């Protein structure tokens, strides 16, 4: 395949980062707040009390403002695979396209159809059908998360497929393996539950603000009570699924695990760094100590990654240079085999074109020996398979610290709410407002861990990012980057202004 200009690839990368992180500003609130709206409305329908209806409608207004820009920033992602990553789209479209189409059929229409009822159907449908619609919006939103996360998980852990040398693409062999892969299960549960936490914190932050201002006190207290129960349960589940994600990473993406744990040299019964600062300027294989300082928990990493006291966890350098004692092949060998695979594939193609069946068959047999290393053939040096360690490491640790803190925060809110001592606990309320932003950042950092941590691969071990882009020239990509940057900045500013105004206005008065 033709090589691509790296400057252009990096602009395409930057554009994907921009659009994905932008979209993610709105998704967690949609995923979490949709369920909270459903809870609130269920309480209204059960109790028949008007104050719960007003409360539900207020949160739905904020939900709608957030939802609109979520939709707007989402459509670009669906088509960006084609516009900026057409090599990728061709090479894996046979597998990757399916979950995107399923997402459209099974999830987006549920959202689009029932959203209209949720917002405009109060007087037009029965109480029961309206409640049903609100639930459907929550379920539809989370279903759409399911399918896009299945697609993302497949990039991290490509299963259920085979490379077809004739079409020069990967083809699906088993859709169930794709959908039910352990990475997909871990990713879906971790992403949705952590988004529930963000949604719950949104409600807590706005309500805390009201309590601090001594406005809408009854509504704020009620909202906090429901949100803190939801947030606490989701927070605990997030911790559990986060642990599961790391365990799955150990077998599917050991390099990513090593990067976010800052583990350069692997060992049996490895310790886990609870707090630590990486040595600035540390490079793979330069012999420097990885940490400037650290506090470790003995055998923690072995337990996390292998569920055994004495399990082996490979470090970055073991994966790059190999470790014969543990049976690890180094990247240099893989690159060499990959280059052979590329040459044999080209020979196969040439023979097929010339109509030389015997030569084609021989080339194909040679290709099949090394085909699992095809992606490595595009690497130039072994160290290229190491992702940016510092950003992965710090993002991961920030996420874990905030995630743990939030669980305790939820507990305090629940306790204060149950004993009806929220209004006087002003420190807790201030923390409630501030923590929303901490959690938001943690949610984004989760994606940094997932996506920066798997560099340089678009498809783990199969297709490097630098081979996945569209060959279009960096000028065009810079142009669209700027276009989206400005457009999204303006829309975000509008969204924030509208949101703050609506929060200031508050719920309808009785």
């Amino acid at each position: 395949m033709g090589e691509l200009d790296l400057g252009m690839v990096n602009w395409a990368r930057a554009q994907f980062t921009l659009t994905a992180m932008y979209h993610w500003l709105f998704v967690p609130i949609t995923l979490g707040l949709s369920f909270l709206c459903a809870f609130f409305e269920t309480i209204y329908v059960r109790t028949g009390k008007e104050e719960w209806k007003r409360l539900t409608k207020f949160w739905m207004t904020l939900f709608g403002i957030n939802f609109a820009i979520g939709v707007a920033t989402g459509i670009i992602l669906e088509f960006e695979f084609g516009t900026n990553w057409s090599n990728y789209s061709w090479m894996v479209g046979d597998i990757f396209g399916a979950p995107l189409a399923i997402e459209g059929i099974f999830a987006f229409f549920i959202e689009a159809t029932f959203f209209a009822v949720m917002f405009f159907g109060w007087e037009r449908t029965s109480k029961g059908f309206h409640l049903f619609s609100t639930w459907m919006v929550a379920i539809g939103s989370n279903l759409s998360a399911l399918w896009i996360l299945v697609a993302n998980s497949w990039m991290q852990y490509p299963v259920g497929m085979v490379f077809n040398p004739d079409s020069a693409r990967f083809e699906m062999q088993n859709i169930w393996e794709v959908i039910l892969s352990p990475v997909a299960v871990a990713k879906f549960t971790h992403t949705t539950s952590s988004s529930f936490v963000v949604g719950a914190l949104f409600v807590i932050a706005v309500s805390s603000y009201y309590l601090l201002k001594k406005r809408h006190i009854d509504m704020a207290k009620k909202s906090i009570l429901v949100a803190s129960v939801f947030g606490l349960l989701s927070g605990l589940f997030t911790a559990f699924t986060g642990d599961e994600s790391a365990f799955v990473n150990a077998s599917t993406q050991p390099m990513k695990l090593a990067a976010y744990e800052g583990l350069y040299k692997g060992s049996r019964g490895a310790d886990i760094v609870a707090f630590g600062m990486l040595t600035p300027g540390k490079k793979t294989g330069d012999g420097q100590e990885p940490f400037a300082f650290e506090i470790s928990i003995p055998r923690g990493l072995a337990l996390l990654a292998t569920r055994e006291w004495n399990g082996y966890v490979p470090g970055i350098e073991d994966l790059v240079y190999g470790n014969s004692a543990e049976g690890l092949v180094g990247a240099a060998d893989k690159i060499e085999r990959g280059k052979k695979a590329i040459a044999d594939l080209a020979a196969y193609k040439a023979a097929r074109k010339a109509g030389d069946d015997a030569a084609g068959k021989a080339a194909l047999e040679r290709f099949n020996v090394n085909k699992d290393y095809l992606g490595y053939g595009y690497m130039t040096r072994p160290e290229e398979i190491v992702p940016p360690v510092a950003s992965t490491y710090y993002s991961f640790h920030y996420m874990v610290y905030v995630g743990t803190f939030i669980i305790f925060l939820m507990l305090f809110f629940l306790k204060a709410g149950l004993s009806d001592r929220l209004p006087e606990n002003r420190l807790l309320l201030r923390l409630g407002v501030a923590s929303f932003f901490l959690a938001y950042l943690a949610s984004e950092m989760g994606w940094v861990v997932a996506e920066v941590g798997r560099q340089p691969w678009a498809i783990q071990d199969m297709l490097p990012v630098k081979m996945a882009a569209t060959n279009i020239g960096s000028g065009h990509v810079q142009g669209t980057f700027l276009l989206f940057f400005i457009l999204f900045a303006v829309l975000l500013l509008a969204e924030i202004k509208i949101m703050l105004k609506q929060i200031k206005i508050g719920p309808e008065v009785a």
Partner: protein
Amino acid sequence: MIGKLDITTLQQLWWILCSVVGSLFLFLNFVQGGQTLLWQVAKDDREKSLIINSLGRKWELTFTTLVLFGGALFAAFPKFYATSFGGAYWVWILILFTFIVQAVSYEYRKKPNNLLGEKTYELFLFVNGSVGILLIGAAVGTFFTGSNFTLNAYNQVAWTHPLRGLEAAFSLFNLSLGLFLVFNARVLGAMYLVNNIDFKGLPQFEARVRRSCLSSFLLSLPFLLYVVVGLVFFDGFGVGKDGAVAMVAGKYLGNLLAMPLVLVLLLAGLFLVILGVTRTGLAKSTTGIWFGGLGTVLVGLAVFFTAGFNDTPFYPSKADLQSSLTIYNASSSHYTLTAMTYVALAIPFVLAYIAYVWRLMDARKIDERDLADKKAY
């Protein structure tokens, strides 16, 4: 049963499915058409709000159908998805741009403190309905006029025109198809508004909407004529017996004659649209949208079938005829098409609940009471 279908049948089936989704999108463009009518037919704030709130209950369906159209093409014809989106870069980016600004406009237009002001959001809606639909029409036009791309042995796309897809909008045929779609969307928009809004006490407003249906239809005719004449007389792209793509005289007319059913779809569709126009523009009926809508779907199907069936490459390359994409060389594998066909069994259920909710929500027409609601757009 689905598991036993051969790949050719599946490829044809998925072209039909994609065509259905694409044609439904053209019908649902009544939302975009309505958006461009806003400044023309609404003379005060109340009339404007009635239109926005009427369209505002449907825009997401159109938007979602576009997304599904993209997703279905990705899953079933990934080579088209990769080639066209990556190649005709700017035309798709600009189309997306108009849909991004549409998505926030309904929700933000009337909200206090909305940064850009009411007029800007209305402009966004207008741009979506005009430029967006025009470019979609131009992109569909390239199914007949061809594009400027080559594919290498690894199916990587290279575009040979510096405008990167925007050149599609400078072909008279593509432009005509685009403008026809813009005016047809306005025809449908007027039909929908007549059906959806309670005009009690607003006879002049109703008259303006009905008139705009007729005038938009008349304005669409020259462009329709050019498209039809083009299809009848132009050389088209054809796949020969040896599998090689070549220019064939009267190819698309030949397709229509070789597939009489498609010709019937086309003529019946046009007839239904005209029927819808007369019911809306010349009579007092509110049911024009169902005739116009069904008619648009049938015409859409005829267009897509003419482009893809009867040994015709649906995404032909002017730059290198042999790089042209057919539904047979651009499709997913047998396994994926089979799996996706099982998924497609859900489509009737999806259509059923959409229809059910539509009926439920539209049982009472949009009126003053809807504008008084705090959540109104």
